[in-house]
């Protein structure tokens, strides 16, 4: 292996990783981001968690797709004295 490296022959695993990263970035955008809700969910939770205590098991993020308009509904409980829940829709 050392000799091969010395001769400039690359390990194949890093090549595989690079090819996959490029391919999957492309494919995820084609499939219309079926995982968009999951990604939004994680990022929204991270932002909210910076400021309030939330119960991660009690969170619903729902996307309704329309022709001209889609809605995103985030429903979560914020743990606070009194335990108020907020619902956001946009």
């Amino acid at each position, binding site marked *: *292996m050392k*000799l*091969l490296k010395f001769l400039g022959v690359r*390990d*194949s*695993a*890093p090549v*595989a*990783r690079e*090819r*996959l*990263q490029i*391919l*999957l970035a492309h*494919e*995820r955008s084609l*499939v219309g981001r*079926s*995982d968009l*809700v*999951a990604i939004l*969910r994680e990022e929204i939770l991270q932002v909210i968690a910076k400021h309030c205590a939330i119960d*991660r098991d009690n*969170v*619903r*993020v*729902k*996307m309704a797709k329309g022709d001209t308009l889609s809605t995103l*509904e985030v*429903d979560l409980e914020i743990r606070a004295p009194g335990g108020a829940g907020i619902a956001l829709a946009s």
Partner: protein
Amino acid sequence: MSQVVVVTSGKGGVGKTTSTAAIGAALAQSGQNVVVVDFDVGLRNLDLILGAERRVVYDLVNVIQGHANLSQALIRDKRCETLYLLPASQTRDKDALTEEGVFRVIEELRQRFDWVICDSPAGIERGAQLAMRHADLAIIVTNPEVSSVRDSDRIIGLLDSKTVKAERGEWMEKLLLLTRYDSARAQRGDMLKTEDVLEILSIPLLGIIPESQDVLRASNVGAPVTLNNPASAPAKAYMDAARRLRGESLDVTIPRDKKSLMGMLFGRKAA
């Protein structure tokens, strides 16, 4: 509370059935009530891996079509009394499973078992989607190899859109089970690294199962590897994965084999 788990991959032959049997048995060996359900209609194999092929009388399709009830179809393992199998049928009719029927059976299994583990067929079509439909948690079986990782990515997209949980806007938990991990190839730098697969798929790791003769031996004699040879490396890796499923936090060890360590010491042919 019972957990419905789907063992899925997209790509065929990566180790879903082997893993379903091994993790199901490992959970049952620790006293949990477990049923493993074969969703691979037309190509059933879980019965063979569990050594129950001669005991199959009724199957999932019979139950769904009302020709048998669940108790008639369930097969209790001879070695481990809290482990049950619900076999798939060998029918070639692809539409034998109905969405409503699958829902009913899963709900009934939830009442009886702590764990309902569904062995998915390969692919991303109807059969695979029915197997994942009612899951609370998904185990994504992946080999450290480009086509398997790509297919796992597709399956993750489906889990986040086509399952009941996803449709309700709930979080679908997904865990990566890296199987057929070959430490000699890893050392040569010819196998995708665990970190790379984790980074690309961005889901947590449930375990790493080494490529091993013990898996083949176990399937030859019809026993999950965790029952057939509990001291073997793959059995230990599966048992650790089962403990993590139960909520224990254990470090994942990356399998190394002695041969390749020797190879490093004494030099190897540059393959």
